[in-house]
């Protein structure tokens, strides 16, 4: 009896341990999961602007456009989800929109329930901010043909007339950061902490490696995908391992990098950020951050919705369309020549004279 009971409890604990440990991993492919499965949609951010932008097609009705966002991580993660939250808030300054956000839905089934909930509640646009939500979104979209959905990062709208796909050329900012990082390193060893080799994380890291090697072929760029979007301690240990192996410049992507930036700050090692401006994680060590301006995507989609087009298109943000921006940290004393090379690289990528080679 006792042994049976032990086995039952042991099995339950193991199952819970594995499920919970997977909270730190990806649900599927791309973007950052974290945790907490709120069951219900919550309206957390409301922003209204008194007037519509003069050049934006008028949202003719008096009712604000209602946007629901479903995201896998916290709204203020200084990374993936915050990049969308910041963008939608910027859009709200110029448009009459009402925004509701459900963050922390790393469990795909919970996210699917929230997506369906927004659609049932009559939201005009439901944004599934995570590639892993693509599966359920395909089914939900068929049930609500009058609702526009958006899925990112993805370039596939599954042939649906009411799904927009949006994506980011994260490799561009990675390339710029890599060019500058290769000039900052003294040891010729650079460390990169990533979650899983997929989605915008892989694009950023591949671009970073390409940029660093284009600038200095002798640089060794070591990449560690730690197979987790949420394990901060593991990211911290990965950064320590890089430092111990001689790395003197670090970068990384996804929300668990707050562990790695802590090591960078402790060791005084320059850090390059992505997704959101990460200067707050280390005013002395963050050199520059690639910032996602999803408002390019949002404005495009909202314009088309106003024209009656609910989907069937992919929108990509890049340096050239203003969807990506490299924000330098004024608090970091970056050598003027290195900064100039970064700016020149941005210009080259924007006008097409420089292209980011495709990753493996």
């Amino acid at each position, binding site marked *: 009896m*006792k*042994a049976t*009971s*032990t*086995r039952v*409890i*042991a099995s*339950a*604990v*193991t199952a*819970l*341990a*594995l*499920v*919970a*440990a*997977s*909270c*730190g991993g990806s649900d599927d492919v791309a973007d950052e999961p*974290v*945790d*907490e499965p*709120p069951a219900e949609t919550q309206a957390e951010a409301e922003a209204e602007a008194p007037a519509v932008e003069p050049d934006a097609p008028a949202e003719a009705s008096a009712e604000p456009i209602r946007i629901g966002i479903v995201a896998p*991580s*916290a*709204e*203020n*993660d*200084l990374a993936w989800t*915050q990049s969308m939250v910041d963008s939608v808030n910027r859009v709200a300054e110029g448009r009459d929109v009402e925004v509701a956000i459900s963050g*922390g839905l790393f469990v795909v089934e919970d996210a699917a329930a929230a997506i369906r909930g927004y659609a049932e509640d009559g939201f005009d646009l439901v944004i599934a901010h995570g590639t892993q939500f693509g599966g359920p979104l395909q089914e939900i979209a068929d049930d609500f043909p009058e609702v526009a959905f958006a899925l990112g990062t993805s370039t596939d709208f599954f042939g649906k007339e009411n799904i927009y796909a949006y994506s980011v050329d994260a490799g561009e900012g990675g390339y710029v950061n890599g060019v500058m990082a290769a000039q900052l390193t003294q040891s010729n060893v650079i*460390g990169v902490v990533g979650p*899983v*080799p997929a989605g915008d994380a892989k694009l950023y890291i591949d671009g970073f490696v390409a940029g660093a090697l284009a600038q200095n072929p002798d640089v060794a760029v*070591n990449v*560690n995908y*730690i*197979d987790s979007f*949420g*394990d*901060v*301690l*593991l990211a*911290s*240990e*990965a950064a*320590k*391992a*890089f430092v*111990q*192996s001689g790395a003197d410049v670090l970068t990384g992507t996804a*929300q668990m990098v*707050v*562990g790695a930036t*802590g090591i960078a*700050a*402790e060791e005084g090692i320059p850090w390059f950020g992505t997704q959101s401006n990460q200067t*707050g*994680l*280390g005013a002395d060590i963050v050199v520059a951050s690639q910032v996602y301006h999803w408002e390019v995507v949002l404005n495009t989609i909202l314009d088309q919705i106003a024209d009656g087009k609910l989907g069937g298109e992919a929108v990509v943000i890049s340096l050239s369309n203003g969807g990506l921006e490299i924000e330098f940290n004024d608090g970091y004393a970056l050598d003027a020549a290195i900064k100039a090379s970064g700016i020149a690289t941005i210009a080259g990528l924007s006008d097409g004279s420089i292209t980011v080679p495709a990753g493996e």
Partner: protein
Amino acid sequence: MGDFFTVSVLVATLASGIRLGTPFLLAGLGETIGQRSGVLNLGVEGVMLLGAFSAYYVTLETGSAVYGIFGAIVVGLIMGLVYAFITLVMHAQQGISGIGMYLFGLGFTDLLFQKNVGTPKPIRGLGEVNIPLLSDIPKVGEIFFQHSLPVYFAFALVPLVWFMINKTTFGLNIRAVGETPEAADTLGVSVNMTRLATMLIGSTMASLAGAALALEVGIFQQNLTSGQGFIAIALVYFGAWRSYGVMLGALLFGIVQATVLQLKTLGIVEGANSSLLAMAPAVLTIVVLVIVSRRVAAPGALTRPFDRSA
């Protein structure tokens, strides 16, 4: 592969494994004490989160990690009292109550973080403390004696917990109420008071495990613990309810994690192989749990509430 078998990499890997194993060890030791008295607490993860947030927030506000640790101790004691009320007074089923505690910790820390902190802000943790003389021993010093205070504290607790359980009257009471509470009761041992004490100790240690984690990485974010509390509970079974066994499990888990990390850092394993290797600690735990659960019996009254009138 040869790159891995260099002295400097092996030393770094072992030191990293010890750091990674510390939260498991602290939480696992506390859970061991509780389970030896017949109390299963599946809410360790939630208490760890609460401890992590309280240590982080107090440190953020006061600038002192020591105050942060005191904050975590207070929170741990409060959560121990709450769990004791639920299970000892209200006689709620332990497994479900523990899951409730976990969900509470997960949601409440997220709420507090969103409302009181917002965007992640780094804090200054405890920092490394080099043990005089010992830390200067080549290689050995680097592996064992150049860590933060919670690491030393956790490993120092291992023999203390062993001594308390096996060599003290209190430990005898713990074992008695964990095996046959009715018999212990007839001998004048207060089953509920003994269990209350182990719950307070276990909860405080879980909270300290969370604090150790937050102060090690110098930051807090939603679900910082990423399932470590559940792994700690699994390690109690892994360690067959013995403090040294739990330490072995925590070290094994931490060192396997650190090894995988180093292999990936050095570029020795990549792609699908790296993902397979990342599963190694979990697979190892399952295998050992299967073996242990067949050979070692759990405390006889584990999860069984005690009601004198029943």
